[in-house]
């Protein structure tokens, strides 16, 4: 089945999200749609899937114009979609989730037998291992995504839309997904693959359509270089690998010894972990998501509750003290999720910039906030960190992902600190913001700070770090020099030393 869009336009007020977009995907073809966050990719796909209505334009299937007003229409025409945020009910089983909306009942009682057989068939065909009776909440995200794919296939999707499918996946899971996509393609399914990750596009796509600010700016084959694609996507030349100056190593700043973190049921999440970071170096933690990275970051500022061992900052023990003590002892902390842990969405930008200094002079005096100082501080920082906003009084939730991250960085790096902990600092950011964050982290290193970079992006780890610690199942497998090959690191991340 082939799908074609002609002149699709969608406006939100004065913003043109999609400007007369033409594109097509042939039978058994993988079309990558590449674009930065906010370029209009998701809006376009929501139109194809019937979640939003286009202002003008046509959708053609096998050359015939169709009208799609709802996801049910889309399914009827053989279009399936796997959303960036999964549409699964966590407390339901795999089979229950898959039949959701298409339940078959016998005398008023839900029957899942047929569905289970079908799930098995599809799973076998693509060599998935899936237990139809497992609860969704107990499954890793990679598996949850496969369930979404199975769901689309169950209802005979001939064109499958994958919206940023690798955003939540580990490098291994990503590779597995790419293999699944190839296998789907070989069986005749067309795939529209929406992403902003260049490596994946090159690995799997037959054709690449690049969208910038709601317009198609070019369509190329997978032979285009990453630099060419990035330039097309951003609209100007970009530096993908930051340049690192020579290292000036200082004295030891952080000393972690035998750090063990338990969850509330006593299971070990981090086991006997030891590491040092010196002033003037970036130590990167590489590893597949879920091997204890989040717990390590949280434990270092006393956010974890059940911790043993020792954490010394400039030879002073900070383990067991409050979060505030750890931060004020000289740690800047950029959490993994800026929306959840880094910012308060309904607070203004100015207020978010004083979140962890609100009761210190000069932000406050005698228990009272100094509005003037807070505003001055905000004006200074949004300039220094290039936060694009109309007003410092706007809610921080109105900012784009990149600008939100800049607010977090501005707050944390403007305090006087010796150790900078950043967790997944560029997740979900556009290329421009990624460049900014990378440069800023290198600046901190060159200014003699110790930096702990936790990232699941291997490129980022290799590009920025001086040393790399590989975390596997809560333990450090090894700490290696930056010149270690990608392949070797990949193997270590899978637990092979």
């Amino acid at each position, binding site marked *: 089945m082939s799908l074609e869009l002609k002149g699709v336009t969608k406006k939100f007020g004065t913003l043109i999200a999609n400007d007369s977009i033409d594109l097509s995907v042939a039978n058994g073809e993988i079309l990558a749609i590449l674009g930065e966050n906010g370029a209009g990719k998701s809006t376009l796909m929501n139109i194809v899937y019937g979640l939003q209505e286009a202002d003008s334009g046509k959708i053609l299937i096998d050359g015939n114009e169709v009208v799609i007003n709802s996801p049910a229409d889309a399914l009827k025409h053989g279009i399936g979609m796997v959303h960036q945020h999964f549409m699964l009910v966590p407390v339901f089983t795999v089979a229950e989730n898959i039949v959701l909306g298409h339940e078959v009942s016998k005398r008023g009682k839900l029957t899942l037998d047929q569905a289970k057989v079908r799930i098995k068939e599809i799973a076998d065909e693509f060599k998935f291992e899936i237990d139809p009776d497992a609860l969704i909440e107990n499954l890793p995200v990679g598996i949850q995504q496969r369930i979404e794919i199975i769901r689309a296939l169950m209802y005979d999707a001939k064109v499958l839309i994958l919206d940023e499918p690798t955003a939540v996946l580990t490098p291994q899971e990503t590779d597995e997904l790419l293999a699944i996509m190839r296998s789907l393609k070989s069986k005749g399914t067309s795939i529209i693959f929406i992403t902003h990750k260049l490596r994946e596009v090159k690995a799997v796509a037959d054709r690449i359509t690049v969208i910038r600010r709601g317009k198609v700016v070019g369509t190329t084959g997978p032979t285009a270089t990453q630099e060419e694609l990035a330039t097309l996507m951003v609209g100007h030349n970009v530096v993908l690998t930051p340049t690192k100056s020579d290292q000036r190593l200082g004295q030891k700043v952080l000393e972690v010894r035998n750090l063990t973190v338990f969850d509330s049921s006593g299971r070990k999440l981090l086991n006997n972990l030891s590491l040092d970071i010196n002033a003037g170096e970036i130590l990167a933690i590489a590893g597949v998501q879920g091997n204890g990275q989040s717990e390590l970051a949280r434990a270092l*500022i006393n*956010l974890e509750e059940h911790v043993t061992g020792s954490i010394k900052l400039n030879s002073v023990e900070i383990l067991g003290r*409050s*979060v*505030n003590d*750890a*931060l*004020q002892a000289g740690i800047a*902390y950029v*959490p993994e999720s800026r929306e*959840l*842990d*880094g*910012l*308060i*969405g*309904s*607070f203004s930008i100015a*207020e978010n910039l004083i*979140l*962890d200094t*609100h*009761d210190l002079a000069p932000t*406050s005096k005698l*228990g*009272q*906030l100094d509005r003037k100082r807070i505003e001055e501080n905000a004006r200074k920082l949004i300039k220094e960190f290039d936060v694009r906003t109309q007003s410092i009084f706007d809610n921080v939730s109105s900012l784009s992902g990149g600008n939100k991250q800049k607010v977090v960085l501005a707050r944390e790096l403007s305090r006087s600190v010796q150790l900078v902990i950043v967790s997944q600092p560029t997740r979900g950011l556009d290329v421009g913001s990624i460049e900014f964050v990378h440069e800023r982290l290198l600046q901190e290193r060159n200014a003699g700070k110790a930096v702990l970079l936790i990232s699941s992006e291997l490129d980022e780890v290799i590009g920025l770090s001086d040393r790399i610690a590989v975390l596997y199942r809560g333990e450090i497998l090894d700490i290696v020099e930056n010149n270690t090959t990608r392949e070797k690191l990949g193997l270590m991340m899978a637990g092979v030393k």
Partner: protein
Amino acid sequence: MKNAIIKFRKVALLPFLAFNFAFLIGGIIIALTDAEVMAKIKSPGEFILAFLAKIGNSFLAIFQGSIYDVNLARGESFFKGFYPIAETAVSATPLILAGLSVTLAFRAGLFNIGAQGQFIMGAIAASYIGFSFELSPVIHVLLALLAGILASGIYGGLVGFLKAKTGAHEVIVTIMLNYVASFFILWILKTKTFLRPDSINPIAPEVNQSAKLPQFLGSDLRIHLGLLIALLVAAAIWWLLNVSTIGFKFRAVGANASAAKTAGISTGQVTFLTMFICGSLAGLGGAVHVLGVNHALTADIGGSYGFDAITVALLGRATVGGTIFAAFLFGALQTGGLSLLSNTGTPVEIVQVIQALIVLFIATPTLIKFIFRIKKEVSESSLAAKGWNG
């Protein structure tokens, strides 16, 4: 200035419409449940006249009972007519304090359903100090109020402590503590200490003259010092929420506890402190009520002040100014309801129907927006729903 108007409209429009719409529906119910009006159903002309007259008379009665009554002024001074509005203020006083208790909790991300119990505890403590001691007036009043604040502060603080230490949900705990308080007052009024010596009814001795809150507009009007206390406390709470660093912590925890924690704010401390202050506020309401109006503790001293406080806070959209305004509206409804009964024979319960309708319409912003065809721009964040995410 223009921004201020836009902001005000954004916050106040929805409660305003909800309030008016509730009155409209209330009026229709009054007319449709009236036997005389319904008797005329066969002749449409007369029916409509009677229908409208009934609604008009009812609302006039509420107005006369709560704001200004020409009949009272007739033959006497113009000011005598203001007696009803003074009564409204008397009813509003405890509602302001209890309403602030719920408002403050909302802002810190907590749902304090326990204002009723805290109100009762405050009233018990203030009454005890009031009748047990002979002191000089200023000191006696201060001591009695302080006792009310502390007793209910501890009662509320207990909820915060349990939540911080064990994760017990404040909604469940406060509901339970409301029962505890309403049975505790029944029991304590039977003890030797509290039961009035010459009485068989459960009523405590009247507080000594020195502990009574003075009526500062003369003895004709029951309006008492408690109103000024309530307004001063409201100003203090406004300062706490919007200017102080503690209030910043409260709001941060209320808006995103996880981010607040990551920024080094102790959510446990904030939860405890919030519930302590919330308890104190409701308890001060109880203390002021017993020292200013009733003067003697009875089993039904709490009335439904603590529950109305939730509506007041919701109608006031969890802002200090809004809460004061809503407390006065509710005070007016209460006093107006009484004259509704005496002047038009309409059951006073209709006031509760109107109150319930207000809550319903505020809780369903989509419905109001649909009815009045309002487009976006009006904020509809439902504060009440947040409490359950704990």
